[in-house]
């Protein structure tokens, strides 16, 4: 989730022309030796601290991340030497790269799916603005407020083979011990943690549907089911796009829930890229960790690109 949750926020904000400053005169138009009006009224140094911090502690590391994966940077010696693509060849050869990539993508897709499914169902259940509903909305929002690490531990205690769920049901199911299903379960936990946020956004989306539109549909004799699929769901589209994309990109960057429930197991079947980086970094193989970090970066960029274009288009439409 991290930093992307509010992406759509301002994107969807109506951009009114009213607030725009009058177009500055073209550069050539102003008398030489004098600053433009914009420069006087909104001096660039207001932006400087933000640009410097962002450039220095976000952009620069990402640029360096294109260099260090090609070195032998490690805990064991002080010099850093160029080694070409060795680190990438290694994670390619032993299959780690594809596995981590596959696990991360599967996890992100599943997590985004569950988060939105739960969020939408809750929003539909709690749509009316009553006291009863407001109370339960707050209750379902609770997991959002609890740290993801804590959520992970809670579900580990529930799902362990000798944990609370098996004990209550009298079963002996290794919930966290399946190489194919555990990842689904952890994604459900992820969905559980963030469903409250998705719910709020869907609620807002539902509220934004014009009343006369619903009236018209009702006058046409649409039943509740058809009402939902042909009128309300299409109108929810912006909320869906926003929720799906942010949860998808956010869960690409996941760590804490997985670390706290499975630690990447069983048999590395839930070892997402960040867990791999964490593990390899701990062994002192810093360049290898950096290589995986670069792969994650590139994958996210590849996924974010269509998204940005989509958001832009919507912004222009509004």
């Amino acid at each position, binding site marked *: 989730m991290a930093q992307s949750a509010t992406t759509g926020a301002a994107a969807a904000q109506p951009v009114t022309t009213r607030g725009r400053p009058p177009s500055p005169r073209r550069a050539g138009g102003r008398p030489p030796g004098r600053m433009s009006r914009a420069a006087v009224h909104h001096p660039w140094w207001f932006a400087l601290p933000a640009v410097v911090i962002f450039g220095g502690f976000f952009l*620069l590391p990402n640029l360096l991340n294109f260099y260090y994966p090609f070195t032998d940077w490690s805990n064991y010696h002080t010099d850093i030497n160029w080694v070409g693509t060795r680190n990438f060849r290694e994670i390619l050869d032993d299959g780690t790269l594809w596995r981590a990539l596959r696990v991360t993508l599967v996890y992100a897709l599943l997590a985004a799916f569950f988060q939105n499914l739960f969020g939408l169902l809750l929003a539909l259940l709690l749509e009316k603005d009553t006291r009863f509903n407001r109370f339960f909305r707050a209750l379902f929002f609770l997991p959002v407020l609890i740290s993801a690490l804590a959520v992970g531990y809670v579900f580990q205690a529930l799902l362990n083979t*000798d944990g609370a769920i098996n004990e209550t049901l009298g079963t002996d199911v290794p919930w966290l*011990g399946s190489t194919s299903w555990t990842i689904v379960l952890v994604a459900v936990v992820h969905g559980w943690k963030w469903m409250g946020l998705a719910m709020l956004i869907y609620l807002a989306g539902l509220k934004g549907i014009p009343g006369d539109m619903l009236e018209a549909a009702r006058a046409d004799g649409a039943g509740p089911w058809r009402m939902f699929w042909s009128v309300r769901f299409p109108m929810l589209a912006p909320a869906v796009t926003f929720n799906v994309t942010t949860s998808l990109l956010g869960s690409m960057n996941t760590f804490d829930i997985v670390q706290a429930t499975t630690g990447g197991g*069983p048999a590395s079947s839930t070892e997402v890229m960040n867990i791999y980086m964490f593990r390899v970094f701990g062994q002192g193989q810093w360049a*290898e960790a950096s290589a995986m970090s670069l792969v994650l970066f590139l994958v996210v960029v590849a996924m974010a690109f269509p998204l940005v274009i989509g958001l832009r288009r919507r912004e222009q439409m509004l």
Partner: protein
Amino acid sequence: MRRTATAVALIATAALTLSACSDDTAGTANGTGAGGSGGGEVDPTARLDGVELTFWTAQNTVNAADQVIEAFEEATGATVNVEAIPDLYEQNVPTRLASGERPDLMFWQPSISTLPFIQPRQNLLPLDDEPWVGDLGPTEQSLGVIDGTRYAAIVTSPAMLGVYYNKDVFAEAGITEEDFPTSYEELLELGHTVQDRTDASAFYEVGGDQWPLQWQVQVQLTDLPETWWEGLNRNEESWTDPAVVDAITTYNEELLGAGLAQEDYRTGTFTGQGEALWEGSSAMALNVTSFQSQLQAQHSTEEIDERIGWFPIANSEARGLYSPDQTNGVVAFATGDEERQNAARQFLAFWLGPDYADFLDARKIPSVQPDVPNPEGMPQTAVDQVGELADAHGVFQAKAIVAPELHVALADMIYGERSPQEVAEFVEDQFDDIARDQGAEGF
């Protein structure tokens, strides 16, 4: 605005050039490596008023040296400040060192695979001529040495790897001490006997916590000669050696495949292992001394003596394996401050000299010095283990220059995600990578 861009570009390039090329801060060499090792004469109780020493420990060993520290402070007037470094200790200590911090003393696993983490040659005081070196038992003396130089004082005896068994289950199966196995093969046969005659599973295996998985393979590697390990460390031998692959295969097929482990061995936990052995739902647990600590945390010495026994096992004999851990060794840092360096060495001499018997008594742990007897009140399993230490084999963590994560690959194997051959290849790859990172010769 153009100037902004230029400024940003400038800052960016400056920072780029700054950080490219080398990570100077990683384990800064301090140049005073051998400073102050002026002969072996150390007076353990010389006055040290006003001297302050910093001692790093892990979270779970923060009180381990309390007795020594108190006694030392009283005897010399020095002050020793204990600072707990958070878990994961082996990961966080190098990070702290990299940021330039140096304690004077620190608990550290004295094995050749773990010492390189802290770059001993640059960071640590050599301890070859200390007065206590000759007092250590033979196994203890072999620990803490890298490339012929001693960097760690051995203060507690290393963990022992062996088989813990439930005495009631063994009695029910009619197994007596004469039936104890003298080879891994016999151990498996014994397992079948137990399962045929009782309801208990022969072994409790810990797939959930992973790390104990390695022991079943490790005990089968004891017939590899010393020269093989030396060859491995020069990249002349490989983990894909048939001996290693066979050991993994045997574990996979003749123990797990033959149903000698409890049903949920894939998700079994360390805690579960303790419970299962205590209740007798499993007959045996192959594990190191921390298993015993787990029992001791919950049961009294008498209860343990009554219910749990221990015997050593290796591939073709009844010998134990020792496994060094973080509480066994203490290293002293080359801080560049002569007075503190000497005080640190004096502290070690005090610990392993006049104070040692009191220290053991306070902790109820076995001695590393043949001349200092073990304290009273240790469980019999612990006494048995100490007896085996002198001629024990070492686990690979103590023999290979890099300790690969065999257990991670084995965890993949028990889920059918890797074959024994692939487990060996994973281990070899990782060994190779890190050995090369360490700059070991031949890699």
